[in-house]
């Protein structure tokens, strides 16, 4: 089935950049209480650019694959660029059609990343 394309399952089973950074510059924790997805995102920032990222948490295949794919994409990008990211960037990365119910899962990593680069506190 589409939602579980080979690539999604691969990122789910072997998430890239899963774990922790030694000295993260920004961290952000976010959750999706309805389905219990949870992500802890860490970014290393040097000269206004993301030089490393790590994440942990638990969630469904869609949310974990989205985090893993995003991690590969954002390293090397400037904070300025990342502030401009939106829904479409993640959906394109996933390369699958995500129905309305699972959209929240797919967008959780993006939400956490945007909050981190905008420097929001966790309750904002």
């Amino acid at each position: 089935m589409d939602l579980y394309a080979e690539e999604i399952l691969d990122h789910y089973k072997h998430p890239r950049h899963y774990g922790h950074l030694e000295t993260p510059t920004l961290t952000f924790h976010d959750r999706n209480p309805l389905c219990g997805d949870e992500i802890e995102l860490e970014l290393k920032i040097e000269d206004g650019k993301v030089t490393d990222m790590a994440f942990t948490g638990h969630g469904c295949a869609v949310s974990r694959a989205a985090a893993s794919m995003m991690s590969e994409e954002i390293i090397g990008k400037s904070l300025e660029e990342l502030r401009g990211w939106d829904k479409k960037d993640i959906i394109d990365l996933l390369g699958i059609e995500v129905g309305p119910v699972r959209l929240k899962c797919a967008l959780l990593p993006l939400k956490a990343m945007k909050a981190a680069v905008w420097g929001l506190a966790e309750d904002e």
Partner: protein
Amino acid sequence: MPTTTMTQSTKSQSPTLDIAAIRADFPILQRRVHGLPLVYLDNAASSQKPHAVIQAMSRYYEQTNANVHRGVHTLSEEATAQYEGARAKVSNFIGACCPKEVIWTRNATEAINLVAYTWGRANLKRGDRVLLTEMEHHSNIVPWQILSAEIGFEIDYVRVADDGTLILDDLSKLLTPRTKLFGFTYMSNVVGTLNPVQLLTEAAHRVGAVVMLDACQAVPHMPVHLQALDVDFAAFSGHKMLGPTGIGVLWGRRELLNAMPPWMGGGDMIREVHLSGFKPSELPWKFEAGTPAIAEAIGLGAAVDYLSQVGMEAIHQAERDLVSYAMQRLPEVTGLKILGPAAEKRGGLVSFTLDAAHPHDIAAVLDNLGIAVRAGHHCAQPLHERYRIPASARASFYLYNTREEVDLLVKGLQKVVEMFSF
């Protein structure tokens, strides 16, 4: 009308249902999902509807439709008779003293809110306590939390043991002389546990607390006689018992209902209105402001007729048989953990987790195989927190489900494991 007969199974001693005949009464069971026959295992969320219910509602709209309790014209009189007739059927079905103890609401949630906002506001004060359980559905927690913030009473919870049963050792400590209400579910919609309603009710009454029973998962699935249980209030929803959405029931002992202030104000709930004030109507209309869900009430009446003809004891036994079978087969799936007690202590549902996959992924893969199960916290987040899991998957059965469908579920889950295993 159902075309079912009771037959004695050669395999088990319990009476079983003529499932093929029952299935033929449910048009939706003919449909396919993703090209495969629908296997509907989400009955605890909402049940399917037999032809008899759908017919009763369309017949009402085609031949009777009018407002109730108002006109003197033929249609209005017929509508009123059918609408009140449905109330009498429900009253009979749940062992109420009389139809006036049956208050129509939109659903169980509204029924519990009604009790909180009328009985609760009139009877609870700062310093009082309300006892609930950790396994309650949000609809039997949040109304009390809202009211507690307004009034300042305390809420205590009966905790749940690892096996999904209530921990009752310190019940006498939790039921203090200040405890004014004990609200609990007859059957958990997550772990399936059937709670000892009579024992809990007696304990509540010993300290003078009123009992609010959430009968949402019980009334659709087993014989329930509310007067015999001796509870004070009970709530359930029509859509979980073969009836339509938009209709539910608050049952209450009439002394309590009579003493309670009305809730929503408007037409139908008043005896007289003057510019200087109003006098409320008598039971049950006192709590039914505005034009009610007439077709839905009539639909629920037809659902109750259907269930009674099949027989609630037979339905209960058939579901128990199905849940035992499911609990015997599910552990064949690698990494599957069942939540809740042994089959003897539960009704017809089973929730579980898989090591390999998140409940959302389980439900999505099963859906692709035509199998409908629920994934999430099933509106019981505190219970999931207690088990330290974010979510679970749930298969819940009803009178039309079969052992073959359980086999398909097991096969589907094996496929999930195959797909997601590392």
